């Protein structure tokens, strides 16, 4: 047994039960700085998506377009465009995720990170503790463990919805922003 492995599995028998998981990783501004460290300006480029564009994006990406507007910024250093910064949200059966992506001037995906992750299960909604964790900063959520992050060892949760979302973002970029 490795003595450095400080881990009391026996603690699980006296389990503390907590409702699951919500995490904020980055704000939009933090993600912009991290994806485009050389940028001095982010130009707001939110784009409305009309019916014809919606169909085209759905055809190109194989995923549904749910929002009529794509949140977008163009990153600049002086007069040089560095790429686009896009924000999207996806939800699955149990999770709601906001994420950001960067697309470089060649139209290639250069970064993807999760901004916010919220998870819920049918039974949890009835649990007032679960609701409490979504009441925002300033209220001490019961499971707050350093920046709201709970380190869970569990069965793997699929990232398929985000992967689908990224395909949609790339198609939206082609239709609305490219060229």
């Amino acid at each position: 047994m490795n003595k450095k492995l400080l881990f009391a599995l026996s603690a699980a028998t006296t389990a503390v039960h907590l409702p699951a998981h919500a995490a904020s990783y980055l704000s939009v501004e933090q993600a912009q700085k991290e994806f485009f460290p050389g940028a001095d300006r982010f130009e707001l480029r939110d784009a409305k998506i009309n019916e014809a564009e919606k169909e085209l994006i759905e055809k190109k990406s194989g995923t549904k377009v749910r929002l009529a507007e794509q949140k977008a910024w163009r990153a600049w250093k002086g007069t040089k465009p560095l790429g686009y910064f896009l924000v999207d949200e996806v939800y699955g059966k149990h999770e709601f995720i906001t994420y950001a992506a960067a697309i470089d001037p060649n139209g290639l995906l250069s970064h993807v990170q999760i901004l916010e992750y919220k998870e819920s299960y049918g039974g949890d909604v009835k649990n007032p503790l679960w609701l409490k964790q979504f009441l925002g900063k300033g209220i001490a959520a019961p499971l707050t463990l350093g920046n709201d992050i709970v380190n869970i060892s569990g069965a793997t949760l699929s990232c398929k919805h985000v992967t689908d979302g990224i395909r949609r973002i790339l198609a939206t970029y082609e239709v609305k922003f490219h060229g």
Partner: protein
Amino acid sequence: MAKIRATPLLGTFVEITLDRNAPESLFPSVFSRMRALERIFNFHDPESELSRLNRSAGEHAHRCSLEMLALLRICIELYEASGGLFDPAVRAGAVSHQRRSLADLILTGDRARISAGTVLNLNGVAKGYIVDRACEMLLEGGAASVLVNAGGDLRREGAGETPIWVRNPSSPGELRNLGLLRSGSVATSAGYFFAEGAELPYVDPRSGRSLTQIPSVTVAAPHCVYADALTKIVLLGGDHHAALDRFGAQAFVQWAV
């Protein structure tokens, strides 16, 4: 305040926590390194090194990258320590004359030779291996404390300690505290995110069948690659299997009620 980032990777969400003084630039570089490693071991990508190795079966010896060689050596070690319960050459539903085992893999220097009909799938260990490599890279890059959590298979190293939680298999939204982790790994295999009655991606090499009903198995071990593989060994061989001691591991099994 620690720095935390998350990204979709390895088919799941990878969350990385570093101490407040760690360089921010570590995040993009470690995520891109993990993507490169994922490409090597991706079973579903015909261009991956693993797919090239599989295509060489019965034909020629494959010259392995250092990463592939390291993971194949670990697989052989696990195969032997588990008496064949851990076997990345086993496929669900193979009829008896098609059955292969890791004994069909021969390593000589950096060359790997697999017999005709052998298909290796490293999904049971690649994630843990990549978590270990990411952890090492972050420590070498100047982080004082590191936690890499790849969708539930995690490793922590460095200063301080972190409480770790497992999901209740009867109600996965509910968490149970496992204790504090200072140095080492925790991995879990469980069926609660699969549809009721679905064939799970765990095959019993003794029968060639996929498992359908499994408990939640959590293993703590010094390295994530072993924790990851040992969850499957415990699923098949029970929570007193000798391989646990061999790799300095402990298991925690929860059945859904």
